[in-house]
Structure formats: C-alpha cells, structure tokens
C-alpha cells in the first residue's frame, strides 16, 4: 500500500469521471439528461483544477460553468423544448463526422502532451517538494494593471476589465431602449394624446 501515489490516484479518478460523463452526454438521447451529465463532467474537471493547485480556476469553473452557464442552459432547454425536441437522435453521418473531428483533436492533444518531457512520468521527489503558491494575489494585482511575474512592466488585464464593464453598460442601454414603452396617464389620455408631428392613424 506504500506505493500508491495519491495525487495520481485522484487525477485518474477525476479524469475518468470527467471523460465518462462526457461520453454519457454523447450517448444520452434525452436533452435534459445530456445537460445533467455535462454538469457532472464539468464539475469533475473542476476537481482536476483543485488537484493541480489552481484553486481559483477551480472555483471559477464551479461558479461560471456549473453554477451559471448550465443553469441558463437548462432554463433554455426547459423553456424551448417541445415534445419532438426532447428526445434527440444522432444521424449516422453526424456520428462519422464527430468521430473524425474528436479523434483528430485527441491525437493532437496526446501528441503535444507526450512531447513535453516533464509530463512523461511522475518525479515523486520533485512533486513532494513542490509547494502550491497562492494564486489569488498575482491575479488581483493583474486586475489592477500590475504584473508580478516579472515578464513586463505593465499588465493589460485592467483594460479588458474596463472593456467588459463598458459592454455591460451597452447591454443595459440596449435593453432599456428595446423594451416595450409604458405610457403614463389614464387609458383615455393615451388614446387621445397624439405626439406633435406624428401622422394620425386613420
């Protein structure tokens, strides 16, 4: 029992869970079950992130992909799926296409992964000495526009943040402009009041 290396055990466990539920997404025919398996697959992926010491990214994965996006997805599915769309069958041609695309991607990723010398096996002595550093503080400094990794003086994350807030404002403005206008006043006023310059309906 001495020889079990627990990080690899849990890596294999989470990886198997993630891949297994991903295959389950493919094989399921009910659209809500597909979404459910996708949630489990993404949650297992966040377990991989936690295992790798990237706890911020792991929590981000849980919050955004599992908590946010999939709730939206299931909402969309629940509200739009009518009787004939609930069950989905995949055509034979789609299977072939999907198989070609998926295996090409898998081959590329595996080739890249095995070409990195550090990823070929576990150096246990090095792995045990490795200390997980805090990941949040450099991220926070990056958000404030300063880089701490010494690569360059100036970070550019702040500008992306500003742009994203700008996009949010644009979205709110668009929603405000596009919404149905509510006229004030009583029903009688609304029927009689005509804007100056506008053509009369009759």
């Amino acid at each position: 029992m001495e020889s079990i290396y627990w990080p690899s055990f849990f890596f294999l466990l989470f990886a198997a869970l993630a891949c297994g539920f991903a295959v389950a997404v493919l094989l399921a025919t009910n659209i809500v079950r597909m979404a459910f398996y996708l949630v489990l697959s993404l949650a297992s992926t966040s377990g991989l992130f936690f295992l790798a010491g990237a706890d911020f990214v792991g929590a981000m994965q849980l919050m955004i992909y599992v908590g946010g996006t999939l709730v939206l997805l299931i909402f969309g599915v629940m509200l739009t799926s009518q009787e004939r769309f609930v069950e989905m069958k995949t055509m034979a041609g789609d299977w072939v296409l999907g198989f070609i695309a998926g295996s090409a991607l898998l081959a590329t990723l595996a080739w890249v992964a095995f070409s990195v010398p550090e990823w070929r096996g576990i150096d246990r002595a090095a792995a045990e000495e490795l200390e997980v550093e805090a990941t949040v503080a450099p991220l926070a400094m990056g958000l404030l526009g300063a880089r701490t990794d010494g690569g360059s003086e100036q970070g550019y994350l702040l500008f992306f943040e500003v742009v994203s807030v700008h996009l949010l404002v644009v979205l709110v403005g668009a929603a405000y402009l596009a919404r149905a206008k509510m006229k004030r006043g009583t029903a009688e006023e609304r029927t009689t009041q005509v804007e100056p310059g506008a053509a009369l309906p009759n």
Partner: protein
Amino acid sequence: MAEIINSVLNWLASWVGLTVASDSLLGFVLAAFVHVGLIINIVAVGALVFIWLERKISGRIQDRLGPTRVGGKFGWLQTLADGLKLITKEDLMPDGADKLLFKVAPYVSFCAAIAAYLAIPFAGGEYPFVAQHVNSGIFFVLAVLGLEVFGTILAGYSSASKWSLFGAMREAAQVVSYEVPLGMCAVVPVLLVGSLDLVYIGNMQEGLFTNWLVFNDPFTFITFFVYCTCATASVNRAPFDLAEAESELVAGFHTEYSGLRWSFFFMAEYGSMFSVSLLASILFLGGWNGPFPVTEWLGLTGEPSTISGVIDSIMQFFGLTAGGTSVAWYLGSLLGAANLIGKATLGVCIMMWIRWTLPRLRIDQVMTTCLKYCTPIAAAMFLGAVIWQYNFPHKNLFGLQDRPEATYAVSEGWQRAGDKVASEGGTDGTEQELEEEVSEETVSLPSEKTVAMSNSVGGGN
C-alpha cells in the same frame, strides 16, 4: 491509576503507530471518514436541532401551540417523531417523471449544501479547524452554495408537474439573481483584509469586538445588513420563500416528493442556512474570536503562558506528557469553535424570527428588492469601503484599529503599484495639490504613502 492510563495510552499510541501510521491507505481512509462524518453530522444534527427550534420559535412568536403532544422536556422528541414519520412514509413518484433525475435531484441539493462546509473553518490560529484549507476559501464557498439551485431545477423539471416547474423556475430566478449582491457584499471584507482565505479573514479580527469588520467603517456596517438580506433570499427563507409559497403554488419544486427524498431538500435548506450564517460570522462578526479576547487572557492561544503551564503540569502529574501547550491550544480552538457556532446559531434564530414575523413578498417585489435596492446599495458600499480604506487604512468606527497581525494588504498593494509608477516618472502640479489635500485629511498616514497613492491614481489609468 496514572500508570494504568499511561499504559493504555502507550498501547493505543503504539497500535496507532504500527497499524494506522505505517499504512498510508488505512490512515488516509480513516482521516477521510472522520472528516466526512463530522461534516455530515454538522448538517444532519444541525437540521435536527433547527427544526425543533423553528417549531418552538414559531410557537412563541405566532402564539401557536408548538410541540405539545410529544414527550420530552420542551418537546425535544418532536424532531425524532418527524424523522420517524418521514422515514416510514411511502416513496411516491409520478408516472410521467424522469425516473433517474427525479431520484438524483435531492442528493444533488444535499451534496451541494454539504460541500460548502469543506472550506468553512471553525477555529483559526496556526492550525485551523477546517476540512480543506482552500486558498480562496470564500470564493469556493460562494461557488458551491450556488450549485444547490441545480438540484432544485432538476427536481422541478423531472417531476412532470407544472406546479413543480413553476416553483423551480421561481427559485432558480431568485437564487441566481441574489448571488450578484451576495457576492458583492462578500467582496467588501475581502477588500479590507486583502485575502480570500477565510482563516486569514477570521484571524485578522482578533482582539476586542471593535476589530470586527462590521465595525470597521459605516459602509461595512450597512453591507452586513445587505448581506443578511441577500443570504436570507439566496437560501430561500421567508419573506423570500415564494418558490414554496403554499398560498399560490401547491408546494413549489418539491410538490411531488414525499418521505425521505423530501426531507433531503429540507436538510439541504437548513444546512445552507447554517453555512451562510457561518459565513456572515466569519466575514463580519469576528469569526471564532469572541467579543472580548478571553482566549488570550486565559493564555490558550498556543504560546507558552501560565494556564498552558498549569495544564502541562497537571498532565505531567497524571503521567500524560502529551505536551501542555498543544492541549491548551486545543482548548482555545474549541472555545473559538463554540464561539463561531454560537454566533451562527444566533443568525439562524434571527432568520426564523424574520420568517414568522414578516409577510411573504410577491415575485416582482422579490426581484425589485434584489435588482433595484440590494445590488446598487452593495455597489455603493463597496466604493465607500474602498474610499475609507484608501484614506483611513488604520482606523475603524471606534478609532484606531488594534489588529496585531494587520498587514493592510490592499493599501500596501496600492503603495507598491504607486512606487512603480513613481519610479518611472515625476509628478506634476495638479497631483501635488491633490497630495496636499489628502494628507490634511489623513493624519495617520505618512506623506510618502499619500504621494505614492495619488500617483497610482494619476498614473494607473
């Protein structure tokens, strides 16, 4: 007597050393079981107590009779009777239900409620009482608490009942939208302390109750109440319990559930109620630090002191040389855990008080409260806390802060960023004027710091 105890302990220690410690698998499994057992029992026993408490409190507030027909002092057998009833009820499932998802949904909710406890510390210090010390703990807890809604949606969808679907959609809309102000409120203490680590945030509030972050400045004081409102809404308690409003829907997303599956949803609800109260206590109310530093006065902090010396000598008298300071530290941590659990239980009691006092809000009122009041107020409080921390980093509502290990990471970060900018270019006239204005207001700050800060404001953009 002492020799017997000593020999038994020696035997136990050798057994542990030979069998558990030498076998990593057994040790690992044992440790995992202890942790999991503790966490599950927090939720399960917590629900057991809180259900009884809820009946008693509602009985007092609304002049109901409360548990009167069951035995035991104060009717404490009520929850056991409830549990027995729930276990023996028939497990029903609608004909058109999606059988797999219908069965899985309660467990999804329950697992999400339990998983939040993985990262919540119960006592701080050098060796905190926490199952997994996550570096960005508060972020993890908030992320996991948001997953509970997923089980709700699944339950509502798979029940094949339109009432369940309506209830689930209402709850999902409510919980997802209240996560926004909840997160913004939780960011304010993070900003003041400069860390996402819950253990660190709790340890920073050591000392008198004036060090609690709720008393840090007027903005955090208001933020605390906004947090409480949003937390109540995000765990679906009244007055925001429209998802299970029996006056409009039949019973919300769990209409079709019966027996034990139904009770899993309620254990999840009570579990998440307790975890948001724990979070409020750690973020705002000093965590495991009491209103007065009793642990320090008693000398139970882990450093050598009179009390730990006394405990040490008592242990030596009985022949138990386990190391007195570690026992004293353990006692101090237990006191801290009792402190935290007491505060959180008080929070749960206040939630119950609110539930049995206020009427239920309409769905549009729920949304208005979130989007038109809580979110803007939280944003404004965040800005206010930034400005306060910028100008008075060492002051709180009661005057000077007395934080022993305070590092003021945020102000220091600004200063560092400012130094970097200052080394690149000089200041011009307008920034000099700004610096003079700022330095008049801030007495406690050295003027170099304000120069650096005003530079960072001018140069950062």
